[in-house]
């Protein structure tokens, strides 16, 4: 264990540890930004995991078939929206229980892409790094933020755009109203379930993009274990962040940092630290962070409550 704490010191000054942390945090941020909007409107969108996985697979197919990363990313977003379409209509039109729908979707997506991937075996590759001059020269953080595979830079416009949607547009105001008090929103003339469905489509879009990004920035090759619970961690980040964009991004960075540091330890020569312990550590940190810092006080009041017109 002494090794472990020595290693932490080394890592804190290691550039590639930060680079890995940001790569890991960005997949969470992309997915969590859309999830934040869905939760603001009142849905805990468990199928986020499936959306990311579907996105990653579709991205692989897109690049495999058309040889273009852009087509891959487009496919990724479409795949996310397909999963979102099922989730949205099952839980905010029928309405089935959103958690059951989400869990079943995650299992279903895993089965479908696992099968298709073994049939098609798409061939893909990591995209190249693009160095942004001057900014990348900032010590320690510069390379992590500005010398990365170019798909990572998508996060810079996407997250602020989603924030702007929620807090600066009429649509965003309606979304927040619907998540806090659907009855009041209904009486004011808003279409509660339609708005909720729209937010899930947005979550599908950003989560699909997250999957495509992760394939091209980190994995290179599609595997069905590629997402590995990051969807759930992104949901945790939204809760950890107290349903604010700032907090959510903070949570993503924290969880990304922990995951990356743990991965970096062996490469720094600390072989004696048990790999099983390292694999577990990010999840332990997530749970501890949730236990100590997450508070449910500021959650949208109607979170996870279905809205049926005319019923109280």
């Amino acid at each position: 264990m002494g090794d472990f704490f020595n290693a932490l010191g080394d890592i804190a000054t290691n550039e590639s540890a930060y680079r890995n942390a940001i790569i890991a945090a960005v997949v969470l941020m992309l997915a969590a930004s859309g999830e934040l909007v869905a939760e603001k409107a009142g849905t805990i969108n468990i199928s986020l995991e499936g959306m990311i996985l579907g996105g990653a697979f579709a991205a692989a197919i897109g690049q495999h078939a058309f040889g273009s990363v852009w087509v891959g990313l487009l496919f990724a977003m479409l795949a996310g929206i397909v999963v979102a379409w099922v989730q949205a209509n099952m839980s905010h039109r029928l309405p089935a229980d959103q958690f059951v729908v989400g869990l079943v979707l995650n299992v279903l997506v895993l089965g479908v892409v696992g099968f298709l991937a073994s049939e098609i075996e798409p061939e893909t590759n990591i995209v190249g790094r693009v160095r942004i001059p001057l900014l990348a020269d900032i010590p320690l953080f510069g390379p992590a933020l500005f010398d990365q595979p170019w798909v990572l830079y998508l996060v810079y416009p996407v997250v602020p755009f989603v924030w702007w949607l929620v807090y600066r547009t009429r649509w965003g105001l309606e979304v927040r109203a619907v998540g806090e008090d659907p009855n009041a929103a209904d009486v004011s003339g808003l279409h509660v379930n339609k708005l909720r469905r729209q937010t899930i489509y947005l979550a599908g879009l950003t989560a699909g993009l997250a999957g495509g990004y992760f394939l091209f920035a980190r994995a290179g090759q599609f595997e069905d274990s590629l997402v590995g619970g990051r969807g759930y961690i992104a949901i945790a980040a939204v809760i950890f962040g107290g349903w604010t964009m700032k907090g959510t991004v903070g949570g993503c960075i924290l969880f990304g940092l922990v995951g990356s540091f743990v991965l970096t330890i062996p490469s720094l020569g600390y072989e004696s630290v048990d790999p099983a312990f390292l694999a577990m550590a990010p999840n332990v940190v997530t749970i501890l962070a949730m236990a100590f810092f997450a508070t449910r006080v500021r959650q949208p009041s109607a979170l996870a409550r279905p809205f049926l017109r005319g019923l109280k």
Partner: protein
Amino acid sequence: MTQHDTIAGGDATSPPAIELIGITKRYGAVVACDDVHLAIRPGRIHGILGENGAGKSTLMKVLIGLVIPDAGEVRRHGTAIRINDPVAAAEHGIGMVHQHFSLVEPLTVWENVALGDVGRLDPRRVRARVGEISEQYGLEIDPDDRISDLPAGMRQRVEIIKCLRRDPEVLVFDEPTSVLSPAESEFLFNALRTVVERDGKAVALVSHRLGEVMAATDEITIMRDGRVVESLSTAEADARSLARAMVGREVSLRGDVIQTGSASDHVHRDRTAEVPVLRITDASARGRDGRVLLDRLSVDVHAGEIVGLAGVEGNGQRALGDVLSSLLALDSGRVEVESREIPTGRAGAMARAGVAIVPEDRHHSGCVLDFSVAENMFIADPERVARRGLMDRGEMARRAEALIDRFDISCAGPDAPMWSLSGGNQQRVVMARELSHDPRVLVAAQPTRGLDVGAIEYLSEQLRAAARGGVGILLISTELEEILDLSDRIVVIANGHIVGEMINADVDLERIGMLMTGAAAESGVPS
């Protein structure tokens, strides 16, 4: 022959802005509205008076498109119109000021006002419009205040502004004073007068409170059992005949007691020397969001005494009820039952100590609608009808029958599902359960809310009988009439603190009003 033909008075001849003709709405076998005619005229305040369940609210919901009638039509300036949803109603110049559920609490005033509009969101313009309206009608408010920080009176201003921003021709107010203090109500009616006289708007004011309808309206329509029983101008109305029309028989007005001030049936015994059955000392509690729920609240209830807790809704009554049902733990202070301290917030502790509770919302926490009458009677203490962990269904049915008899509950039997009972009978089941435990203390929170006059009389009598039998009763109510009618002693709550106390024999209405409002004034409402 239509009812409104008979209306007399000032400009009662002016053509109505909105006319309801032959509106009928059925829910299964229940007729909520039966061939109702109503004319709402510009420049007039039209009171729609009736008891709970008389069909007033259904009628107003027809007007704003939340209920589609089975028969009849709505005319605007003589032309038939269709109103299928609130948006259509707004297009036809009809706006409703909702009492309970149209503001989103975590949003600010201007954000709430903007909800339901279309087009690009322009905060500056919405804020300016809020300022404009609030100046025009004297409804002072800061557009950037958060709704959750505002007291009821201010929230209602936001509702009114939200309604006025679309410049409606007809404004509908549904029980607007139910959460207001007397001073806030006065303010509201003054604002309404401005709206009506200056802009010639028409106002429909729905209420079950006779006094305020008499004071604030120009015309009155009285509804009973879904029908219009009388339409007249306010000038020629008198309280007693209105009450008779409303209820359908001669009633003793609770208001009589208030007006004459002679509550002679409440013979006050000085009990200060006796040990109270319930003593709450310096109780303080905060909500999870840090809001103060109770603030050093102290109150005693003696055996055989009814203590009425008066106050404007949302001043800590619910928290106090929660403490006494072991749902909420105190941050400081103590609760004693018969001189024994009872730990707060520990499930079942209060009930075991002999505190019975008739909760504020019987559907939410008073009973389980899908359970049978018998199951509801023994749900809190199934031990009494169980042997070695198994329910003795025969014993349960026998005891339930006895309670049904004793409390005169009208139902198909012990196995009848709770939802098949009327509200009054559901409340009797709750009362039967709580009183059958031989409690030392009975906490009755809004025990008659939503019930008809017959049920109210019955339940009031039950409370009196329980008190005569030596139970100490804490009556929590926002209906001042109810408090004055039943209580031996009255305490006034404001902001989670007891701000005043008096015995019923020398009750001073003005002082109670001041106490209830005095606290409201601190939060920015002029009194």
